[in-house]
């Protein structure tokens, strides 16, 4: 494009100002990425949650158990494809700070109900044979440098005072999608039943139910709860998304908070860059007059100003998003255990660039229109 030279030369006219404006964009876009990532971390569970899965817990409270004997009854309900049960182990590995979720799983049905977390076939086979075996998510394994064959002691706090339980890592699972949770630690139900004090035996934390079709969700949930109504252990069954969403709602105003901060950033950025563009155009009134005198059309002049603004926006935006791509994994590991996966997705990046371009266009528009409407005679007189 032949106006390149002119646009570039104008941009580099005042290097400090260029750097500062680029910096402002970079900062704003970095913040944008950060906020998007945090929002997703808090609310993402609800998005990820499967529409084809139900979660059944004790109606009284989430910390109360339900009997293992319910399993067959649930499996018999029409529309149920597979059922698996879990317990939350909640143990401590070396230090409280090293938190990661530990689940007791039912190996027979786990993979049917939760197919998106994938274990290599041979590792799974070894796990099945090993009573003390454990499967750990890739992220947690990486965090502690665990390898297959490592012996991991985990102290129980909820289930009696038996001290540390020892597990052998037989496999590492990976999620199919980027957002999938790769921090979980699974071990055998049988081992759990064996070691746990009498009062905890035969009890399950929750059931995860896979449906034939998502359309059955409401009907099957009602059916399950009806089955166990008026029993000593009544259930409350809902879709996984509803379950995840209610956790998020307890967080109250996270989204609102993030939206507010985001808007503050947007408007401030708009102001800063708009003002910068305005100043820069004001300084060049004479030159713009010359261009018009030579024969540059009004529209061309508007285009020149807009192009400058958009160029700054794009470059600054890329800088900021690039920084985010680098920084967010570091942040994720610093916060690991506090927040689930911090992921910068492609759609977030695209949205970021769009946001940058929007601000760039908006900030260049007013000064650009002013430049466009500049009357040559007035501009030249000022020179």
């Amino acid at each position, binding site marked *: 494009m032949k106006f390149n030279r*002119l646009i570039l030369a104008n941009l580099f006219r005042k290097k400090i100002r260029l750097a500062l404006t680029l910096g402002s964009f970079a900062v704003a876009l970095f913040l944008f990425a950060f906020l998007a990532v945090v929002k997703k971390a808090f609310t993402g569970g609800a998005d990820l949650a499967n529409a084809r899965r139900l979660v059944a817990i004790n109606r009284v409270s989430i910390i109360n158990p339900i009997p293992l004997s319910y399993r067959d009854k649930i499996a018999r309900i029409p529309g149920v494809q597979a059922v698996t049960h879990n317990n939350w182990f909640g143990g401590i590995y070396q230090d409280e700070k090293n938190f990661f979720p530990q689940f007791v799983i039912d190996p027979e049905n786990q993979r049917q109900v939760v197919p998106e977390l994938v274990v290599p076939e041979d590792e799974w086979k070894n796990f099945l044979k090993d009573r003390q075996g454990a499967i750990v998510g890739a992220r947690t394994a990486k965090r502690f440098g665990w390898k297959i064959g490592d012996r991991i002691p985990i102290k129980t706090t909820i289930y009696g005072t038996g001290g540390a339980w020892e597990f052998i890592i037989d496999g590492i699972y990976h999620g199919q999608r980027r957002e999938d949770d790769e921090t979980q630690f699974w071990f055998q139900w049988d081992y759990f039943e064996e070691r746990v004090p009498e009062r905890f035996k035969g009890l399950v934390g929750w059931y995860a139910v896979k449906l034939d079709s998502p359309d059955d969700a409401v009907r099957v949930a009602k059916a399950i709860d009806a089955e166990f109504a008026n029993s000593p252990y009544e259930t409350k069954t809902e879709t996984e998304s509803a379950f995840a969403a209610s956790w998020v709602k307890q967080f109250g105003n996270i989204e609102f908070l993030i939206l507010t901060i985001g808007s503050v950033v947007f408007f401030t950025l708009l102001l800063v860059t708009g003002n910068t563009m305005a100043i820069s155009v004001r300084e060049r009134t*004479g030159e713009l007059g*010359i261009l018009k005198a*030579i*024969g540059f*059309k009004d529209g*061309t002049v508007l285009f020149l100003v807009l192009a400058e603004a958009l160029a700054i926006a794009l470059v600054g935006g890329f800088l900021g998003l690039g920084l985010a791509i680098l920084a967010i994994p570091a942040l994720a590991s610093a916060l690991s255990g506090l927040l689930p996966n911090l992921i910068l997705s492609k759609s977030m990046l695209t949205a970021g660039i769009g946001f940058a371009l929007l601000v760039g266009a908006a900030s260049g528009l007013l000064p650009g229109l002013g430049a466009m409407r500049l009357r040559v*005679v007035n501009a030249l007189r000022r*020179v």
Partner: protein
Amino acid sequence: MVSVNNNGNSSALIQVRGLNKAYHRGEEEIQVLQGLNLDVDKGDFVAFMGPSGSGKTTLLNLLGGLDVPSAGTISVAGDEITHMSSSRLTEWRARHVGLIFQMYNLIPVLTAYQNVELPLLLTRLSRSERRRHVETAVSIVGLADRMHHFPRQLSGGQEQRVAIARAIVSDPTFLLCDEPTGDLDRRSADEIMALIEELVDKHGKTVLMVTHDPIVAARADTVLHLEKGVLVEASKSRQPAVAGLAGGAA
């Protein structure tokens, strides 16, 4: 041939008939040009003189399509520009007019070469074609060795030469100069005027120049005075630069 009295049509390159221009300052209306006529042929070199505020620059602006008159017509090479739309006028100006101002009005962030190239960016010429035109223009003004310098690295006279190169690079129909030597010392002024003369004599350019300096004006073929809103002829012969004055200046 230059004429200020023609009323009907002529075969002149530039024809101005009954030009009126008024400015409004609050309630007042100030009539700057009143019924001005002008004929200029190809290859003519005309100087406009007049006291400050007489409307010389206004006339130049109107001739260059930078402003619109209150009444009257201006035709250049058969095109009547007074009723052209703003964007057509801009196009027309790019094609037909070369502008040289008192302050050189170069873009400080572009090199001399890039400044000269500017008008060509409005054409469809390819990069190499543009280069040819630029190099030609630059060598005509004698600045080939400084093509890639920035304006701040050039002297006043050199800057004005770059401006002239920019004015001629797209081979316009005529050149408009507004006090081209106003900001220069006597020696540089001389050089510039010599260059302009060369453009007229050697390259057949048509030049209309506004100046308040009689010595500069004398170098044109025709000097016209702007009085009471119309042009009046003064003298018809070109006088060479007065050597004594040139040598005595600092």
